[in-house]
Every structure is written in structure tokens, then in C-alpha cells.
């Protein structure tokens, strides 16, 4: 009961007009920052740093939290409308979101993305209040061996769900992992595959890979459409909302994806991209007609969107309970708290209950505010579809370059961007899926490091990978994720033959 009264105190703090204004401001800023390729929540929060120094800790934290959820809402807008994810977590939204927009269902796509985000975020806050401590304890069970196996599970899930054939999915995964080995090896301090280029020492940023493959790839594909004089996809726009049938189809996947996203988000360093891809894959496996996925299936958009927002709430757990940043964004927020003289950690709830509960309550309010702000904003944004491709795509290109520069202020990244743009074009031609490759680039570094950390801890023995029950469970998931689609496919074939 004490928890409830503390929560209501927090709610009273968050609902003050000044704080409400800050949440809205943060949310709108976050939505816009999230939409721009290359800029994610971490940038948005960093922009606010100097402003927040003059605020009270509570006000500072809820503004930054507003930016964080705003970016989570906004990231998928550009995925749906121009097939260019704003950041890694919005990658899965391109799979079915963009086809939906091309099928003339942009309104439903934008609406379900906001609704799923809202529900995923809201339920996760309840989880956060009720389960923060046990979830944090569970997350600590993940040692290097478990992290490695988790990455393997996520990668094999994504590779095996790729359209066409699994072999190509695995080739794409391996290629992505190869890209992730560029840079200084943290365990030995030795530079690898850097060709003497200083900028490559920190590795190839996955965002540059995403922008190259998607934004540039999309521009290249658009040239064909422009030359053939294809029509604008949509001119008239309806209300941003979903139909009853769409809701009946999606509510259960949303509820299923939320806890998954929440737990994955709570693991330090795992994050929204993995959560959303895992949710997508799950729903595809649950589905009775998995072949519709990738062609504009609304469930394929709702599930990752819910998981992604749930993950962003989950990422607060390590920070609030242990003082460990769970993601790049929470790392910046922790820095801001330190500047304000507050030490996040296990004693935060007892030493500064006003700050901790103010933040949690602001997540609730923030979700409502964002849902309210986002639906009309989507009504404006959807009109991007009516912009002439001849003008739109040069602008996408311009934004892709400035977004790339924003990542590390280096022109070297432009060349990497161009290389991946061209690569994406050819990968599309020879039908190699890009999603497994991107996930591999994102998790590859951690995956290799975890492998090496684990074997160093075990003095070289591979036994460490089967020591804990958690490790065994993860191995089981991996095996199922590869074998199950194959069995399902052969069963379907047999059925088709007998009928």
C-alpha cells in the first residue's frame, strides 16, 4: 500500500502544469528527433543536458524521459512512411509497416503503431512498479556465457525467419558479424580490419549501416519508380485510427509482446532492437498465416512496436535499482542526475523517493500525452506519402547524410554510408535479407566479447556455456527457433500433398 501512496505522490508531482508542459515538450522533441535518421533518443537527451542543469532533478528527469518515449514513438514513423528506420529499435516496423503504407493503409499503420506503443509502455510501467527488484535480480544472472547465448538465440531466430531461404539468412548474419569485428578488440587492445583508418578503430556504427541499407537503398529503388512515372501511393487521407477487426487481431499479440520486450529491455546492453525483432519473430511463429508477414500484416507491426516501448521502460530498471545504465540513453540520463548531485542506485528509492516516483509517474502521464499528441501529428505526417517522389527522395538523401554526420561528426562515415547503400541495392537483387545482417552488426560486438569473456573466465573450457539452467534454456530456444519453422514448413507441404 505504501507503494501506491508513493506512486500517487509521484503522480501529483508529474501532473503539475509545469511538469506537464515539460513532458509534452520532451515528447514532441523526442518524436521529431526519433524520426530523423541517425538521431535517436540518446541524442535527444544529450541536447537537453545543458537545459536540465538549471532544473530541479525531478523536472530534468521527466523531461528527458519524455524525449526517450517520444523517440520510441517517433522512430517508427519514418519506417512506415519511407521505409527508413529512425533507429535500430524501429527496424522491425519497416517489415510490415511500409508494405501497409504501400497498400494504402498508412492511417491504420500509424494508428496501430501509436496504440501498440501506448499499451506496451503503460503495461510496462505497471511491471516496473511491481517487478523492478525481481527483474533486476534476474538480469544479474546473465553472465557473459548467457549473454552470448541470448545473442545467438536472437540471431538464429531472425536468420531463420528470413523470407526465401534460411541459408541466405545465415550468410547475411555471418556477414553482419564480420562487419562488427572491425575496430579495436577490447579484450586484447589490438586493432582489427581498420586498414589504418583512425575512424574505424571504434568500429562501424550500426546506424550508418541502417541508414545506408535502408535510406540510400530506398532512394536507389525510387529512381526506377521515378523513371517509370509511377504514381504517388496515396492522395486522400482518412482518419488516423484502426478498424474493429484490426483491433481484434492485434490486442493479443500486443499483450504477448509487452512482457518479452520489458525483460529484454531490462538486460543491460540488450535493448529495443533485439526486443522488437524477437517479438516480430514470435508472432510470425504463432500466426496461422505466417506468409502474410512482410506483406503488410498489421500484427507484424503491432507486436514489435509494443515490445520496443516496453523495452524502453525496462531499460530504466538497471538504472533505478542498481545505478547501472541499461542503454545509451539511460547512460546520458544518469550523467545528468550525477550533475544534479543525485546518485542513482539501490538507495535511490529511499534517499530520493520524490525523484524516483516522479519519474515513474511521469512515464504514465508521458504515455498518455504522447498518444494524444501523436495521433494528430501522424495525421500531418502521413501526407509525406503525397509528396512527389522526385522531391521527396533527394530530401531523404540529404537527411541521411546529415543524420550520418550527427552520429560521429566524421566524413569517413559518408563513404561507409555510400558503400552500404550500394551494397543494399545488390543484396536486394540477389535476394539476401538485410534484417539479419543489421541485427548481427548491432549485437555482434557484444556477442564476440561475451564469448571471449566467458572463455577467459572458464580458462578456455566451453563447459561454461552449459553450466547454468538459464544457459540451457537459451540453447533450447535457439534449437527450437531453427528447427520449428523447418518442421512447420514440411508439415504444411505434406498437408498440401494429401489434400
Amino acid at each position, binding site marked *: 500500500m505504501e507503494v501506491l501512496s508513493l506512486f500517487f505522490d509521484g503522480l501529483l508531482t508529474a501532473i503539475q502544469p509545469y511538469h506537464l*508542459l515539460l513532458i509534452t515538450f520532451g515528447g514532441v522533441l523526442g518524436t521529431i528527433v526519433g524520426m530523423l535518421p541517425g538521431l535517436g533518443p540518446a541524442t535527444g537527451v544529450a541536447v537537453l543536458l545543458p537545459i536540465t542543469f538549471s532544473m530541479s532533478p525531478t523536472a530534468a528527469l521527466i523531461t528527458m524521459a519524455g524525449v526517450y518515449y517520444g523517440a520510441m514513438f517517433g522512430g517508427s514513423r519514418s519506417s512506415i512512411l519511407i521505409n527508413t528506420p529512425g533507429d535500430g529499435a524501429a527496424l522491425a516496423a519497416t517489415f510490415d509497416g511500409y508494405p501497409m503504407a504501400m497498400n494504402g493503409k498508412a492511417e491504420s499503420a500509424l494508428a496501430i503503431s501509436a496504440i501498440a506503443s501506448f499499451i506496451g509502455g503503460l503495461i510496462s510501467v505497471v511491471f516496473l512498479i511491481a517487478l523492478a527488484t525481481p527483474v533486476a535480480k534476474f538480469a544479474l544472472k546473465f553472465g557473459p556465457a548467457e549473454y552470448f547465448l541470448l545473442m545467438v538465440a536472437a540471431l538464429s531466430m531472425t536468420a531463420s525467419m528470413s523470407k526465401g531461404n534460411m541459408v541466405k539468412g545465415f550468410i547475411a548474419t555471418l556477414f553482419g558479424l564480420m562487419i562488427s569485428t572491425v575496430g579495436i578488440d*577490447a579484450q586484447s587492445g589490438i586493432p582489427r580490419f581498420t586498414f589504418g583508418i583512425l575512424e574505424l578503430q571504434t568500429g562501424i556504427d550500426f546506424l550508418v549501416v541502417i541508414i545506408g541499407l535502408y535510406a540510400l537503398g530506398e532512394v536507389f529503388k525510387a529512381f526506377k519508380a521515378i523513371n517509370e512515372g509511377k504514381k504517388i501511393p496515396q492522395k486522400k487521407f482518412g482518419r488516423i485510427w484502426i478498424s474493429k477487426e484490426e483491433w481484434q487481431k492485434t490486442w493479443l499479440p500486443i499483450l504477448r509482446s509487452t512482457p518479452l520486450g520489458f525483460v529484454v529491455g531490462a538486460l543491460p546492453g540488450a535493448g529495443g532492437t533485439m526486443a522488437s525483432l524477437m517479438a516480430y519473430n514470435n508472432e510470425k511463429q504463432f500466426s496461422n498465416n505466417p506468409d502474410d508477414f512482410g506483406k503488410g500484416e498489421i500484427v507484424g507491426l503491432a507486436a514489435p512496436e509494443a515490445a520496443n516501448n516496453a523495452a524502453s521502460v525496462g531499460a530504466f530498471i538497471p538504472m533505478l535499482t542498481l545505478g547501472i545504465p541499461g542503454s545509451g540513453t539511460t547512460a546520458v540520463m544518469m550523467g545528468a542526475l550525477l550533475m544534479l548531485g543525485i546518485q542513482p542506485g539501490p538507495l535511490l528509492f529511499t534517499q530520493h523517493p520524490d525523484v524516483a516516483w516522479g519519474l515513474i509517474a511521469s512515464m504514465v502521464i508521458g504515455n498518455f500525452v504522447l498518444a494524444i499528441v501523436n495521433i494528430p501529428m501522424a495525421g500531418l505526417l502521413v501526407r509525406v506519402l503525397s509528396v512527389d517522389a522526385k522531391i521527396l527522395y533527394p530530401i531523404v538523401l540529404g537527411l541521411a547524410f546529415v543524420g550520418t554526420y550527427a552520429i560521429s561528426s566524421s566524413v569517413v562515415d559518408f563513404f561507409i554510408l555510400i558503400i552500404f547503400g550500394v551494397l543494399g541495392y545488390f543484396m536486394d537483387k540477389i535476394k539476401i535479407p538485410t534484417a539479419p545482417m543489421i541485427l548481427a552488426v548491432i549485437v555482434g560486438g557484444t556477442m564476440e*566479447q561475451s564469448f571471449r569473456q566467458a572463455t577467459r573466465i572458464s580458462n578456455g573450457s566451453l563447459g561454461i556455456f552449459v553450466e547454468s539452467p538459464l544457459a540451457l534454456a537459451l540453447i533450447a530456444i535457439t534449437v527450437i527457433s531453427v528447427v520449428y519453422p523447418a518442421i512447420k514448413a514440411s508439415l504444411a507441404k505434406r498437408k498440401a500433398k494429401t489434400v
Partner: protein
Amino acid sequence: MKLNKKLISSMLSVALIGALALSGCASQSSSSEPAASSSSTSSSSSSESTDYPKSAMEFIAPSGAGGGWDLTIRTVAKVLQDTSLVNVPMPVTNNSGGGGGVNLAYMQTQEGSDKLISVYSPPILLINLNGSSEYSYKETTPIARLITDYGAFVVPKDSPYKSIADVMDALKKDPKSVKIGGGSSAGSMDHIQFLIVAKAAGVTDLKEIDYISFQDGTATAQILGGHVDLLTTGLGDVQSLIESGDLIALAQTASDRVGEGALAEIPTCKEQGIDVTFENWRGLFGAPGMPDYAVDFWRDTLKKMTETDEWNAERTKHGWADAYMDKEDFESFLAEKNEEYKGILAEIGLLAE
């Protein structure tokens, strides 16, 4: 054209809301950007004869927002502004990458700039010695050392190791028996600070000690989960977990105990018979060939800053020890430390040829 209109209108709305929020906080703070013209009278009282600095400075944290470097330079900017010692804007940018190496390379492109000031600590020496950066501190203009932080060695609360001596004894028997975790890469700060202490304690097989690098801030979770045996980290980084009793600090690397409360209860290495200290000093560096008038201005200003109450309050808040050192002393200090780190890196084979 339509999109442009939309872009502009959405940008305008951001600007509007931004302005609203800014004016909202203006009532709480003095002002986030003091106007250079109106307050120039107060700065002319300084010994500077020229009117430097005239325009905005370029303060750089060579790491992402939220890290130790970032915190230091933002605090400096804040204190200089609050105390009106400097009346031009001092926006902080984050130029991260390569453990600071990317910014070091950037500083070379700004040779002779009177605007650029960056913060660095031991890694500025280490990344050059281990070969990850071709530039050394000699290709910058050291201005002043400001503070030091200290290292700490922590274990989970149920650890069999009760003192740093226990750890060292175990390592002497079998260098593979204690797995050391840290947040920086091999051959960088967390690793080196542990090896310096181990060397002083008489451990000989430094090369054989397993150091496990956890980046992205996951090192603390790994020690809490008991996946490594000991974590080498900064004293301030694990403060709250020490206070809560989740982690036990075996030693701190200061020569006399620093900090307050739980931190002050951590014994130093010296108290435990290992005669060694490790300082995570932080100082400010200008671009190579920074003009003399600018160097003089900042030497003078930073000296004044370190004497203000505001600065001392911030220092105490973050648990930083005062370590002010003027340019000349700082330069000889850097040369001395460079030799010390060189010795350790050579011993573990990470010294670049």
C-alpha cells in the same frame, strides 16, 4: 515544396516549444547564455589586456554524454558561468570515439585555435603508448590539472576475498585464479590501475592475469552477478552500491582516504601494506599551438576558478580531490606519468613499438 512547408512548420513548432521551456527555466537559473556585450565590464577587471575571449568557446568531452570526462568539463563550464569568470558561451560538444583518440586527431586539425579546450585523464597517455592513437599529449597544449579521482577494487558481498592482500596472495599462487573485470579495454585505465597495484604488491606474472573487459557499462552488473571475482573501477562509480552493501570495496588507490561516509571507510592500498597510489587525474588541454594570450587567460582563469566556493562545492559533491597544477608542473607531471605507464605496458606486452 509541400514537404518543405511542413518541415519548416514542424521545426518552428519545436523552436517555439523550446523557447517556452527555456523561458520557463530562466526564472530558476540566472541565464543559460550570458550576453557577452552587457557583462563585458566584469571580465575586463581580469588581468587580460586584450579582450579575449570574444566569441563562444569550443569545450569538448572526448567521450559520450554522461561519462567522467563529460561530467568534468560540463562542471567547469557551469562554474565558470555561475561565477562570471568567463562571459562567453561555453557549449560542450561530445566528440567520442577511440577512447579519446578521435578527438585527439580532431585537435590536430584545429592547430593554433584559441577556442578549443578539451578534458583528458590518464588515457591520453595510454592510448598513445598502446598504439591506438598516433598522437600523444605532446601534440596538445596542456593548460592545467584540476582534480583527481581514485580507483577502487570491489568484490561481491559474499566474496571469499576479505582484503586486497588476499587477492594478491591468490594471484601470486596462481595468476589465473582471480578474474579481474573492468570497464575499459585491455591496456587502458581500469586494467593498468590494477596492474600497478599488483606489481607493487609483488605479483610477478602480470601478463598472465586475466583481465576481462566489459564495455557499455555492464561491468558493474557482472560483479553484482558474481560472474567475475573483482572489479577495478572508479571510486565514485560504485559509491551507491557500496553504501547499500551490495558490493564491498577492498581498497582505494588514494594515498590517504578520501570521500565521505561509506567511501571514507575504504582502506587505502598503503594502509594494507602495498606502497602504491593510482590517480585518475583530469586536466584541460588546448589545441596544439594554442596562442599565448589564450593560454595565459585560461591558466589565470582556471587558477581563480579552483579557489571559488562554487568549484569546491561541486568537487565535494562529486567526490573529486583538488589537484590543481599549473601548466609547467602539469607538463613535467605528464612526462613522469608517461614513463611510469610505459613501464607497465611494456611488461604486459601492450607497448606499441
